[in-house]
């Protein structure tokens, strides 16, 4: 180009800008390059223009660097995400190709365009042996391909843990877009495994907020009852209690302790199996159901929840969760509670939608919001008896008080709910409580049924709605504003970096949430112990009958045991990560032989437990100020963890 443009005369033809830049970039052909070099040696004009071009390249690069972000997100997570996407993509591509191929070898297709087509399929197959051979060969090839690509044998060997991880990743990446509200609809059925009778238990719709821990749940049971509740923190154990009432009492207790909601989600499924009393891979297996995977998790034999197995069903191609089954033994019968996802959608988080998550979600307001007036017939007989009971000053004994406490304990109503038991000097035992839902109120009243008719027991249990309605004056509006201060989700908790060294971002967050929840659950037992101690004076205890005293001790021991289990579980999960240097010596705790020693042991337990709770909370919760969290790695913390367990062990060995 340059050579061609060279004139004949002596006046040099200058290089064009395009040639100069090509020359700088080494993009000219050899002959052109030589010419350009020679010309530049001779020509000041072109040399200075080349310099100008070089300068503008530099200034362009500077400008360019200003509009580029300083750095892009790290490669690690992106590559992991890409791998996952590629695996999914390949699976989808394989099924498409197979379908295409199968269609292409079908007899009708083979005969298309032939005049003998009208004679029919049979004739065409018998007459055209070559086509049949082609078809058979193709079929064999397809089968070989299926075996090679889909590798069904290898599929069966995919571990349950691996599948759960993939499903968790799918759910996290695909089904939880940030800034949206995820609405999932689930159908709940109960199947009697002996008679195969199926019973529909209703529908549940959950709206999960991606910007906070809130979830708004509405449930329509088969008998027409509609329950709605906004749960501000779905990680809070027991927060989901209202929605597990379709299960037997034992199962429901377990489910609500794990903070499980009856809808189909991998994250919730992990919660469901967290307390099954087996190690992660123990009793876990994978089966295929058509194109879907089923992950089975066996529960420890005789598990208090009555659950013997849970099943998570996943889409075989993209690992989307499809259904969850909970298999239980209730008496002599075996049941399957099957939750099937009927719909999932992500909706914009408009102010109107966000209002769903505001608390308190009282029954009244929630029902009004739905525009659906539904009464709770089951609550009626109990509320009648509570309000109409005549006030009589009849002295109750400490023994009766213990019995009331025991009944409440059975209903799980002595763990941090606003239910208090008091006994006046020469007066009755008063049970006062405010609970979240009608359902819970009914449960508590049902549990107290045996003492309900006792004139020395006064029971006053209200729902939040009733309590608010009973209050004169306008509704307390200050509570509604408390949800405004939503933490920035991008912020991390102090121990985040330490966890990230070992696990993915999602796993780290889940781990942290579980640790806080576990620690909280241990603490609730510690508080219950403290309340039980404060409930009776030394004089009361001394005057108590043997049977009542034994009941009281049994209550104390049951909380101590529960505390010990939670606390040890917590320690065992934390130790590999944070307790590297701690000596594994469990301090001996004084034996408990009498009430005085018991009271002191509980005091030691509560004191250690409170410290531990604070340490765990500060390490794993998101705070605005960067709190230091060295405490969790300190020898004192590990000592304190063990001391609390030792105290709990002494208490549970009390005679």
């Amino acid at each position, binding site marked *: 180009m340059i050579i061609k443009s060279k004139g004949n005369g002596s006046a040099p033809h200058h290089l064009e800008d395009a040639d100069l830049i090509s020359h700088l970039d080494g*993009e000219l052909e050899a002959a052109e390059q030589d010419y350009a070099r020679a010309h530049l040696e001779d020509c000041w004009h072109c040399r200075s223009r080349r310099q*100008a071009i070089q300068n503008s390249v530099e200034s362009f*690069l500077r400008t360019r660097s200003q509009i580029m972000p300083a750095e*892009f997100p790290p490669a690690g997570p992106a590559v992991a995400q*890409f791998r996952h996407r590629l*695996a999914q993509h390949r699976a989808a591509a394989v099924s498409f190709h197979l379908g295409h191929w199968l269609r292409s070898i079908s007899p009708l297709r083979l005969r298309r365009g032939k005049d003998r087509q009208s004679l029919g399929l049979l004739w065409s197959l018998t007459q055209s042996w070559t086509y049949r051979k082609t078809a058979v060969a193709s079929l064999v090839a397809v089968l070989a391909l299926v075996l090679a690509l889909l590798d069904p044998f290898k599929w069966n060997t995919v571990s349950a843990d691996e599948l759960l991880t993939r499903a968790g990743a799918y759910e996290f990446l695909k089904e939880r877009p940030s800034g949206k509200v995820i609405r999932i609809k689930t159908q709940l059925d109960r199947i009697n495994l002996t008679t195969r009778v199926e019973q529909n238990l209703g529908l549940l719709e959950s709206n999960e907020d991606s910007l906070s821990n809130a979830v708004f749940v509405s449930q329509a049971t088969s008998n027409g009852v509609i329950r709605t509740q906004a749960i501000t923190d779905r990680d809070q154990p027991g927060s989901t209690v209202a929605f597990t009432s379709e299960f037997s009492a034992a199962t429901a207790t377990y489910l609500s302790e794990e903070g499980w909601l009856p809808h189909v989600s991998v994250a919730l499924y992990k919660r469901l199996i967290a307390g099954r009393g087996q190690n992660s891979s123990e009793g876990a297996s994978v089966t295929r159901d058509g194109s879907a995977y089923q992950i089975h998790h066996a529960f420890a034999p005789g598990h208090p929840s009555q659950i013997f197995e849970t099943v998570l069903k996943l889409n075989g191609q993209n690992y989307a969760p499809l259904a969850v089954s909970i298999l239980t033994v209730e008496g002599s019968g075996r049941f399957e509670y099957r939750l099937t996802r009927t719909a999932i959608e992500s909706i914009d988080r408009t102010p109107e939608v966000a209002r769903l998550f505001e608390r308190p979600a009282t029954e009244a307001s929630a029902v009004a919001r739905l525009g659906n007036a539904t009464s709770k017939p089951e609550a009626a007989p109990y509320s009648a008896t509570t309000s109409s009971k005549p006030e009589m000053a009849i002295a109750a004994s400490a023994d009766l008080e213990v019995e009331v406490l025991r009944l409440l304990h059975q209903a799980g109503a002595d763990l941090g709910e606003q239910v208090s038991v008091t006994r006046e000097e020469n007066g009755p035992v008063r049970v006062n409580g405010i609970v979240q839902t009608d359902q819970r109120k009914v449960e508590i009243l049902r549990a107290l049924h045996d003492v309900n008719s006792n004139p020395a027991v006064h029971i006053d249990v209200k729902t939040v709605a009733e309590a608010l309605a009973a209050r004169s004056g306008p509704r307390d509006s200050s509570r509604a504003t408390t949800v405004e201060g939503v933490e920035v989700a991008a912020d991390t908790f102090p121990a985040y970096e330490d966890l990230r060294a070992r696990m993915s971002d999602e796993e780290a967050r889940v781990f942290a949430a579980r640790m806080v929840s576990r620690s909280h659950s241990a603490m609730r037992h510690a508080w219950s112990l403290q309340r039980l101690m404060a409930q009776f004076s030394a004089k009361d205890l001394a005057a108590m009958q043997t049977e009542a005293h034994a009941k009281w001790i049994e209550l104390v021991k049951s909380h101590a045991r529960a505390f010990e289990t939670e606390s040890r579980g917590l320690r065992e999960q934390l130790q590999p990560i944070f307790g590297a240097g701690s000596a594994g010596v469990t301090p001996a705790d004084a034996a408990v032989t009498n009430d005085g020693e018991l009271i002191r042991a509980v005091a030691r337990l509560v004191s250690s437990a409170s410290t531990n709770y604070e340490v765990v909370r500060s390490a794993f919760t998101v705070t605005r100020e960067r709190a230091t969290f060295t405490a969790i790695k300190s020898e004192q913390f590990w000592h304190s963890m063990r001391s609390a367990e030792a105290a709990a062990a002494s208490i549970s060995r009390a005679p």
Partner: protein
Amino acid sequence: MEEDLALPLSRVFGMEDANARRSGRSNEELVTALYEELRPALLGYAYHLTGSARESEDLVQIAFLQFFDQLTRRAEIRNIRGWIYRAVHSLAISQVTRSRRHDSLIREWLADAVTEDADSVEEALARRQEVENALQVVNERERHCLMLRAEGLSYQEIAEVLEISAKSVSVYLARGLRKFEARHDHKE
């Protein structure tokens, strides 16, 4: 298929490296390795076109999924890097034209960029606008040529991405630089 791959991969990685990479590796691993290698540069280019780090990440991945399809279909790709840049380019262009969300993209960019410093949103917005203006003097094709060249692509590769001739690449580059410089001088 192995044979088909030998030449282009060697262009990307160098011959020995390409052989080492290919030995005993599945297409998935190959594509993933290539993705890891080219991701930073492609993100830069995609970011320039879309203005959004998040979307860039997404469409770079999609481009590699398309590349994987090409491999499984045994399609002949003579220049892998050029091919992938073209895939990213056309994905980004269709993305931008489909959703004219330039304003919101700038805001997203601000959310990414303005975090720690005392830099106010207005300042950052103004600076971004200034730079945008500086680039606006060159037309789209010239800008694409400049950006791709800055990423280190050869004229032939740029020509493939933009589906123009290699010769015209140099013309666009020269013209773009001249306009850019003229504006620059004027400003100073």
